Structures are given as structure tokens and as C-alpha cells.
């Protein structure tokens, strides 16, 4: 009998500890969520009227009511995700700060990624092409030589330089 009671107490304690560990149940029913708890959720939501202003920063009455709903749900023990889903069900995906990663919305994430990868591949290919276009400039020595040959006596340039020298001395 004692054994049974002990086992039951153990079980109860473990369940309670587990319950406390599961996110969302941290706010036990009845405990009143703080403004910071509400804002933490509101920050991630946008009301359909005040476009581009996150819910936690919006001063309109409608947004105040939404924050009230969040507060109620939190005090009922809802998790952050449950509350977000609730608003999505009511008003659609636009209440989220980012489109959910499914269906057509994946395009919004894929395009920048593809552009980046594509851009860098193009850049590397271009660099390669440029380098092979002038193969003799691969080593430092050759580069120097190439640079010198670029500096090859150009009559016009040497005359200009001469002229400049004369001027600065004069």
C-alpha cells in the first residue's frame, strides 16, 4: 500500500514537472499575464488595417482589442503558436510578420536565394573567364612584366610627363 502511494506521488510529481516544462503551460490558468508577455506575442503579429505596424507598437483601438484577446488567451493557458494560429484562422496569413513557408509563399523565400546563388556562380564564372583571357598574368612575376609592358614607351605619354616635370620645376 505504501508502495502504491509512493509510486503515485512520484508519478504526480513527474507529471507536474513535465507540465511545467512544456512551453505554454508556464502560465498556469488564472495567473495574469504581464504587458511584456502580451507584447512578446503581439510583436509577431500585424493587424489587417494598420499595415506594416506591428501589433505591439500600434496605438489604434482595434489593435488594443487584439492585445486584449492575446492577454485573455494567455491567461487561459494558450501557447504563443496557438494564439498566432487563432488569428491566422480568423484573418488569414497576412497577420503574420512573414508569409508561412508553404505553397506559393515558398516563392518569396526561394527567389532571393536563387538570385544569390546564381549571382555568385555568374561572378565566379566571369572571374574565371577574365583570368583565362590573359593567362600570362597568372604569376606575380608575369603580372609585373605585363604591367611593365603596359607602361611600354608611349611617345605621347612620355612627352606629357616631361612637360609636367618641366612645369613643376618651373
Amino acid at each position: 500500500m505504501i508502495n502504491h502511494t509512493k509510486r503515485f506521488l512520484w508519478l504526480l510529481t513527474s507529471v507536474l514537472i513535465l507540465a511545467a516544462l512544456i512551453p505554454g503551460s508556464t502560465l498556469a490558468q488564472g495567473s495574469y499575464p504581464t504587458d511584456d508577455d502580451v507584447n512578446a506575442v503581439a510583436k509577431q503579429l500585424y493587424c489587417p488595417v494598420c499595415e506594416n505596424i506591428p501589433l505591439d507598437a500600434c496605438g489604434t483601438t482595434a489593435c488594443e482589442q487584439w492585445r486584449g484577446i492575446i492577454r485573455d488567451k494567455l491567461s487561459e493557458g494558450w501557447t504563443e503558436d496557438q494564439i498566432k494560429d487563432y488569428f491566422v484562422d480568423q484573418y488569414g496569413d497576412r497577420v503574420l510578420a512573414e508569409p508561412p513557408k508553404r505553397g506559393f509563399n515558398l516563392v518569396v523565400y526561394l527567389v532571393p536565394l536563387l538570385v544569390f546563388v546564381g549571382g555568385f556562380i555568374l561572378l565566379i564564372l566571369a572571374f574565371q573567364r577574365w583570368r583565362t583571357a590573359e593567362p600570362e598574368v597568372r604569376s606575380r612575376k608575369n603580372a609585373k612584366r605585363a604591367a611593365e609592358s603596359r607602361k611600354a614607351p608611349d611617345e605621347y605619354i612620355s612627352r606629357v610627363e616631361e612637360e609636367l616635370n618641366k612645369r613643376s620645376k618651373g
Partner: protein
Amino acid sequence: MAPDIGFGSLLITLIVSIYGVGAAFYGEQKKKKVWILSAKRAMSLVFPLLTISVGSLAYLLLTNHFEIVYVSQVSSLSMPDYLKITALWGGQAGSLLFWSWLLAGFVSAVTLRKWNRDQDLLPWVIVVCLATLAFFVLLNTFFENPFISYWQTPEGITTAFSQPPGGIQLFPRDGGGLNPLLRHPGMIIHPPMQYLGFVAFIIPFAYAMASLITRRADDRWIQLSRRWTLWAWLFLSLGLVLGARWAYDVLGWGGYWGWDPVEISALMPWLSGTAFLHTVLIQEKRGMFKQLTMVLIILTYNLVIFGTFLTRSGLLSSVHAFSKSAIGPIFLGFIALNLIISLWLLNKRWITLKSRQVLTSFFSKEALIILSVVLLLGILVTSFWGVMFPKISELVTGQKVTVGPPFYERVAAPILGGMLLIMVICPLAVWSYASFKHLGRLLWKPFIVSLIGIALPLYGGLTRWPAVVAFWLVAFVLAVNAFEFIRRTRVRRKNKQDSLWDSIVHVLKRNRRAFSAMIVHIAVVMMAIGIIGIEFFQTETQGTIPVGGELSLGSYTMVYEKLDIFDTNDGRNVARAIVSVNKDGQIIDTLYPRRDFYYDSNQPVTIPGVRSTLVDDFYVILVDWKVVSSEGATFKVYHNPLVKWLWIGAWVFIVGVVAATWPDKKSKPLPVRSQ
């Protein structure tokens, strides 16, 4: 009378602009200089003409002519005079006129050049400038006329410029007043700066087009437009920073940048403009990437027009957007026409712009600059896509979505880090050829110094690695620039045996362009410090407290002392809390967060109380209050570390760009010292 003068000069400007385009074109085709000269005179006339128009509107605003629709929409009796002038750009029609006026200012200023050289470019510069101006003036004349007034007709109240049949002019007693969010000192200067930056890009674009049309493949257009480009870039940058400052001071969400679509539409031309400035440098030094430079200036100019389109078409809703309007499709048509003509031209000249030079090393200056250009364009593409996606999604799936800050930040943050890294290496890289070994030799000393940037934050208890990396990069950039400066000064001293001071002055003077670029880059780093501070380390709390109650955040505690509610004589009802800020048990400041309610427009504005130091900002917002209750008031408090560096960086930035554009004293050769 004033509306007639204003509208009359607007119409004359339109006629003069169209005439100028025709005359320049005809003169060029027939090689008749008289016609080109006449077109040039037409171009110098547009600014004075539009000044009359803008002056008339300003007069109507200042003298409360509420029978004018625009005046009654954006002004009211209770507004002070400086705000009535601000109202000039506070609404759709007026801001378009203001935009045209600034554009005309730049366009007319181009004619002040002597034009004794490069005369072949002149007619085409005139055509591009005046055609653009004609487009904007056309919008103002036929679609968004700021001079129309209210009329009472048998059918009801209507708006028209001239008297409709049986109409009697209406004179409302007061106007609706300016949007309260715009009644802030930052708003007086932010839009003009932004507009200046936008419109000034017309000049390099016009030169670029003229260069393409005249089949010139040289850099002359770049030299001619270099200063214009730098000024355009400065104004655009300042416009962005001032906008950020205004958001920080007025919008009351504790931040400075919200990735609002209209902010992005101002950022996009800045990104491509910055890329343009850098490829120009490669073109000048190495004769490379001429095609890319052309693409970038075409892109920048069209993004400027696109930005104006986004704000004015009613396509987007944001704090910036004006009301829905019919001018959207016309704008789109103009952008399309612009793009088609300029890209067609570029395509025709593509081969002639091809460079014979090649990239020889991954670590050369030009390779690194190109890499940073690619990164800038990466942010640009992401931004463009993020702004357009909600519309695309609505068209395809019928569902609206929000693309908010997390989307942009995910891309922009690592790219900014990458750009900082490039800014580390770039000052040390040389043109044409550089090896990793060569760079390594120059980099190791600054690298060791930069470790302070890791050690200090770690010592201070910082554990978030992106922030540690960011601080390290900042320290690295600063160290590299300092070492480079010291190295050059030492070389000079060694060679010339000058005094230290003389060497410093000489090095600064001799490499003014390089050092002004260095100042600008250091300014960017300072701004980066501010951005890192607020993005990574912002903390916030909110609470409702009674008078005498406390709210703590970090090492700060605020005490709610008092709440005053009163009316002002400029039509506001102000609720102002007095809050003392304590740190370590000492009162260090008193703040006055408040909520202004504007009676005329029935709108509230939240003004935070901010204590700002070099280390951090303590930012208090009055969210709500109960007048007769023990519940007290609700405050939202933000702790924004280092954000002041963002604003200081902006000042340094101005210094750098002004130094870069300062006229050279080329005529006097440098004195040669005899040994």
C-alpha cells in the same frame, strides 16, 4: 489672382519644357547651334518659372486661402507659419509641384556650366532633363493640380480650376490641417533632402544617356557628373537618416527603421546609387565595367521614378503613402518608356563599351569592389522582391500576405557583415594586381589590434556571437584605416624629411579623394555600431504604474512623478507625463513622454521622452493613462544601446562627402622644395 499666376506659370513651364526638347532635338539633327542655344535658354528658364508657381502656392498656404482644395486639405488656421510652408510637400499635388521645382533647380543649374567643351553632349542632356521635367509638370497640370478650388453648383459641391457653369466659389472657414505625424522638425527637412537626392540623379543619368547617344565610350560623362552624383548620394543618404531619426522621435515604436515599403523604395535607389559610385571608380582607374556602370545609373534613375510611383499610386499603404490616385498607370507608362529607350540604347552601344582590361586577381581592389557591388545588389533584389511579393501573392492566390522585417533582416544582416569585411580589406588592396600574401602582410598588424574588438565585449559579458563578430569587424575596419594612414604618413616623412604635421597635412591633401572615402567608410562603421547596438541589444518592458510607482529595465529605473493634461494654442490636447530616470539610486534625468491629440485632424501622435548618451538611450513612451483612477499610467520603456552612433555617423558622413566634392585648386602647382 495667386492661383492664376501659379497655374499660369505651371502651364508656361510645360510649354517651355516641351519646346526645349523639340528645339534641342531639331538643332542637333540639323546642326543648327541657334536652336540648341535657344533650348539651353529654355532650360535655364524652367527654374524661375516654377519658382513663381511654388511661390504662389506658398503664398496661398500662408494666407489661409481655404477655397483652394490643396490648402484646405493640408493646412489650418491654428498651424504656425513654418508648418504652413511644410504643408507645401505635405500632400500629393503640392509635393509633386515641389518635386518638379527641385528638379527644375538642378536642370537649370546645369546650364550655368560654361559648356565650352563637350558641346556634343549638351542637346541630349537638355532632351533628357526637359522631357522628365515635362512629364512631372504635365502630371501637375492635368492630374494633380494644386490650384483647383471648391465650387458650389446646382448639382452639389465640386472642385475645378475655373468656374463651372452656375458655380459659386466656396470659402471654407478652416482647413483639415497637416497630418500630425508630419508636424515635426525632422519632417521639415527630411522630405526636401530625400527629394533633392532623388531628383539630382537625373543629372548623371542625362549625361550617361547623352554619352550613349553620341557614341562616346570615354569617361567624360562620369567626370562631368561626378560632383552631381556625390551630392545626389549625400542628399539621398541624409534623407534616409533624417527619416530614420523622425521615425525614432515621432512614430514611437522605439526603432528607427521598420522595413516599411516606402522606406524600402527610398533605400533601393540608394543601394544602386552606391553601387554606381563604386563601379565609376573602377571605370576611372582601370577602364573596366563600363557596361555595368551604365546599367547601374539607368537602374538608379528608374528606381527613383519607381519610388515616386510607389508613394503616389496608392498601390501601397504606409505612413508615407499619399491617397489613391489616378496617376499610377501614367507613372508606370513613363517608367516603362524610360527603361525601354535607355536599355535599347545601351544594347546598341554594348560592344563599344566593352573593356579590353581584364580582372587579374581575386584580391585586387576592383575585384573586391565588384564583390561589394554584388552584395549591394543582393539587398536591392531582396528588397524589391519583398515589396512586390504581397501584390504578386494577391494576384496569384488571392490572399494577402505581410512581408515584414524578419524577411529583410535575414538577408540584410549577413550582407552588411560581408560588406564590413570587404571594407576591411579594400583600403589595403591595390588596383590591378594583389595577392593573398601581399594582403596578408598588410593585414596582420591591424588584425591583432582588432582583437580588442572581441576582447572588450567578451570582457563586458557579451555572449551573442553575431554581435561579437560585428564588433570585431568594426574594430578591424577602424584599425586598417588607421594603419593605412600611419603608413602613408611615415612613407612621406621618410622620403621628404618633413615634420610630422607637414606630412599629415600633405598626405591628406594629396590623397583627398581617398581620404574622404576613408571618412565616409568610417562614418558607415559608426552607423553600423549604432545599428548593431539597437538591433542586437534592444530590451523593452511595459507596465502600468500609479503616480510614484517604478518601472525597471536593466540598470535603469523610471519613476512616474506626475501627469499634466492641457490644451495648447496651436490646437493640440497634450497629455504629458513627468518621469524621473534613476540609475544606481541617483536621479540622472527627467523625461517628458507625451501624447498630442490634434483637434483639427482628430489624430494622436506619441512623442517619446528620450535620454540619449554615447553609451545608450533610455526611451520612454506614454502608452495610456487613466485620469481619475489609482491605476495610473501605462509606460513602454526601451533600452537602446549605442544608437546615438548612428546619428553621429551621419554627421561624419556629411563631412566625408563634402570633402570629396570640395573643388580642387588645380591651377596652382604644388611648390617643390629644394633639398
